[in-house]
């Protein structure tokens, strides 16, 4: 088949030397012409038609970072000259991961596969290593839980490593899920319990992966399990220890809006359902056994041991699933919203905790009240169930997201959860005005657009236009914005502002990527192998990504991706073919495989 290769670069890619790839592809069989179209505007149809005719081309290969961008014009040209438009092959360097150490060889292989008409993922299958049947999952959020259950239910051993004292992650903190307004805990907690009770899942809470060695199929992983100071098996969560504990610190689970003791259980449904001690605040541990120790004396089951030490666990696994999740952007650095200055400016997760029935206000949406701290004599703003409900609430979208100074990307969930907040406020507080300031309404999922319409009909003032300033005017918060659709500048007096804060990769992402050699993109999320074709694999064999750690996504997508990861893991376990690093594949290997497939 007479083939013409066209290199269409939209921008300069410094990793790739296009000239040398072009020279390589000129030597491939059946290649008649190789041309480099570097120009920014799309090439003219006449020119392409002329090329096709003069070389009597039957197949056209478009190579480049985004060749799909040029496809329409080539399709037209092929159709005009009477060729088969199915024979336009795309050799997308970006899509098939031509980056990193052997980007050039990969790009050449991608070009070669396209010239032969062989799909690249078919030809490039690393393999060869035998696979250990145990799987390690890093992160115990909804993604980790879902993947663990899928794999364990198939009868394979799973190690689930979680950094905090309980699994559940961020989803356990949420009140409702959008757009169905289901109770998040009702979906999550049964799954958590089955993880805790599953015989094939070994749950390692308060643990961190500290070292990984070995090759694909048999990774040796070193895990440090921090001391919990409470025996998980004998603890019955009676709360007597927490009653006597004198130390009070901010609760992580409540997003810092309420206080917990140094010995605590994150939330009543925690799995494992046992107390744990925060070693950074416990008086006994900080004083090295000289002070306090009240909980040890009081515990009726005698399961507290404050002299426990960290454990190092060595395990061997075949596959590793990364489900490390996300964090919220530090919004206090975006000064114009006054977070941390004005008491009633809340982040989304703080609002989620006050609207949650298990939260500190028992699900009542109230503004903060001023109380006098008796010990320090300072005035503090705290949430209490007796607080005054707000009369006007402003919800501001895109705080730190889609902003070149903070996160250039869209955090994808903020629009929808802000709409959900609007609904919850309208539902729980009578006669309340809710103002939503948005730039673009990203209601992209099933039932999302309908949800957005419903919120608008419920009487929420949806203002198209971003608010950039929250100010305090004589004790009254004022939110300014531009109502673009109605062509006016607006100024609302509000009692509460909820900021839809952008999402960033969780703190340990960088360390894990260094440990495992998994690449991260410019925003810090883990890079998948192929955005469209294999969104759960990484370029390292036997290492997968699931959930938010790959890119921001909502709960349905996270669960779907976690299940997809489980399918990938089980495929490697049952096929018996083994797995390898994508980067270990050499150009000649891919080429010979492609030739084989081509011959068939």
């Amino acid at each position, binding site marked *: 088949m007479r083939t013409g290769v066209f290199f269409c670069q939209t921008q300069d890619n410094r990793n790739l030397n296009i000239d040398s790839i072009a020279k390589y592809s000129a030597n491939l069989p059946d290649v008649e012409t190789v041309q480099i179209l570097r120009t920014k505007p799309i090439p003219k149809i006449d020119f392409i038609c002329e090329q096709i005719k003069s070389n009597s081309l039957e197949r056209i290969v478009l190579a480049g970072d985004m060749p799909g961008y040029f496809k329409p014009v080539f399709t037209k040209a092929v159709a005009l000259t009477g060729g088969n438009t199915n024979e336009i092959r795309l050799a997308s360097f970006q899509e098939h991961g031509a980056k990193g150490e052997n980007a050039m060889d990969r790009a050449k292989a991608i070009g070669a596969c396209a010239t032969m008409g062989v799909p690249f993922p078919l030809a490039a299958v690393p393999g060869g290593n035998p696979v250990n049947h145990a799987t390690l999952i890093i992160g115990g959020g909804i993604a980790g839980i879902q993947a663990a259950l899928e794999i364990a239910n198939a009868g394979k051993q799973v190690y689930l490593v979680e950094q905090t004292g309980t699994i559940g992650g961020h989803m356990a903190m949420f009140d409702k899920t959008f757009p169905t307004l289901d109770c998040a805990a009702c979906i999550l907690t049964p799954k958590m319990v089955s993880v805790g009770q599953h015989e094939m899942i070994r749950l390692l809470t308060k643990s961190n992966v500290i070292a990984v060695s070995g090759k694909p199929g048999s990774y040796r992983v070193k895990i440090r399990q921090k001391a919990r100071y409470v025996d998980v098996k004998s603890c019955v969560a009676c709360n007597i220890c927490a009653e006597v504990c004198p130390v009070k610190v901010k609760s992580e689970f409540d997003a810092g809006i309420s206080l917990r003791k140094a010995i605590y259980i994150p939330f009543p449904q925690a799995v494992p359902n046992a107390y744990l001690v925060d070693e950074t605040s416990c008086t006994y541990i900080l004083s090295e056994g000289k002070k306090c120790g009240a909980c040890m004396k009081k515990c009726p089951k005698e399961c507290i041991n404050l002299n426990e030490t960290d454990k190092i666990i060595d395990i061997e696994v075949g596959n590793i699933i990364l489900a490390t999740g996300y964090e919220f952007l530090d919004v206090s650095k975006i000064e*114009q919203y006054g977070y941390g200055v004005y008491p009633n400016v809340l982040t989304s997760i703080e609002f989620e905790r006050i609207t949650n029935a298990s939260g500190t206000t028992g699900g009542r949406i109230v503004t903060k009240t001023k109380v006098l701290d008796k010990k320090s004599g300072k005035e503090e703003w705290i949430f209490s169930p007796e607080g005054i409900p707000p009369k006007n609430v402003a919800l501001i979208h*895109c705080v730190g997201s*889609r*902003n*070149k*100074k903070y996160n250039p990307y869209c955090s994808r969930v903020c629009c929808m959860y802000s709409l959900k907040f609007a609904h919850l406020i309208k539902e729980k507080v009578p006669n309340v005005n809710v103002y939503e300031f948005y*730039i*673009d309404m990203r209601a992209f999922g099933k039932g999302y657009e309908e949800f957005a319409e419903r919120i608008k009909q419920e009487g929420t003032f949806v203002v198209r*236009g*971003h*608010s*950039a*300033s929250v100010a305090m005017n004589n004790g009254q918060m004022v939110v*300014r*914005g*531009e109502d*673009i659709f109605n*062509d*006016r*500048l607006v100024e609302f007096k509000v009692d509460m502002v909820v900021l839809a804060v952008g999402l960033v990769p969780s703190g340990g992402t960088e360390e894990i990527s260094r440990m495992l050699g998994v690449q991260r993109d410019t925003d810090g999320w883990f890079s998948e192998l192929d955005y469209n074709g294999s969104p759960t694999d990484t370029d390292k064999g036997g290492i997968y990504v699931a959930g938010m750690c790959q890119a921001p996504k909502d709960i349905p997508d996270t669960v779907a991706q976690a299940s997809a990861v489980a399918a990938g893991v089980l495929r490697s376990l049952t096929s018996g073919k083994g797995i390898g690093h994508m980067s270990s594949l050499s150009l000649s290997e891919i080429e010979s495989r492609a030739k084989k497939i081509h011959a068939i």
Partner: protein
Amino acid sequence: MAIRVNPTFIDDLDRFGAEDVQLCYQCGDCSTVCPHADDMYKFPRKSMRFLQMGLEQKIETTLEPWLCYYCGQCSEQCPREADPGETMMSLRRWLIARYDLTGIAHKFFKSRPIEILTILIVAFLTSGFLLYYGFSGGNLNIYDGEGAFLPSRFIHSFDLTVGSILLIFLITNAIHMWYLVMLKGTNFRVPWWIYIKQIYQLPWHFLTQKRYSECEKKHEHPVFMPWLIHLGLMLGYVTMLILVMVFIEQLQAGPEIRWSVHIFGYMATIGLLTGTFYFIRNRLRKNYVQYKKSHGTDWVFVILLFYIVLTGILQHVFHRTGLNASANITYVLHLMGVVPWLLRMPFCKWSHLIYRPLAMYFAEIRRDAFARQELIIQSVPVLIK
């Protein structure tokens, strides 16, 4: 009224300095933080939108660019780094070119070589003329009085000639602006007496530049407030212009200092010197948003002004110390800067001296007339059912 869309408008504006307009995604942050945006004049977002849509005919009738003093808050805030402040600045440049009927301003803004070449040509023509005049009838060693190299009476008539050329251009441009803004761009009736009622706006904004002081970011400029500096520069310039145009003979007389005239000259010089020094320094240091991007015309502007002030001071000093020959030479050098400067004024940034107060005046007229218009609409009862 149908509006013609100019799809390449945004590319044309590239040469005037607005490079990143296409990045804007219409969030409205800039309008929110702008201290001058109000319900009648919403900017910069709306101007950005007009630009993106290529509504050249709409832009040329707007006043918004003149109401902006470029404090830079919008550019600091912009999540897309689309630089709305610089866009408003470029729109002002474009409007100056638009108001100019000769098309010279357009050429000056687009091409630096043409601008500099024109300035040089005018400068050398001036010097040639002056030297010819001086050597034909005067003595290089006599500064004033009988047989002077450049008698102040001659300079006076020379100044008036240049000044009247300048004035003709400025007046036609101002009338063109009035036509575009008040006739073409105002789609409601403006009663004639509102023009008289609001006339106080002109001297008020011209002499105080109050709006500039309103957009002051005081925490950023602790000592050198740009409003004060700008006001000093402007007042110094106007004082100097009046002195040169009207009182040139007293200004140039005798080696002794005539305090009744010269005190004004000295004060004006202080204003001009601090102003030019401040703006050159800031443009070099680029420490504030508004000085980060300097269009070529900005540099020509400040450097030429600095040169004029410097030669003016030297000329004055040489004259007072009796170095008549040096004084005459520096005087020629000084006029070599002044004449192109004055002739260039209607085609460059300096013409905002006229356009800004006019824009405030027109804006207030429009606002007043529009409020009346609304009143009429409201007074008509609307039957719904």
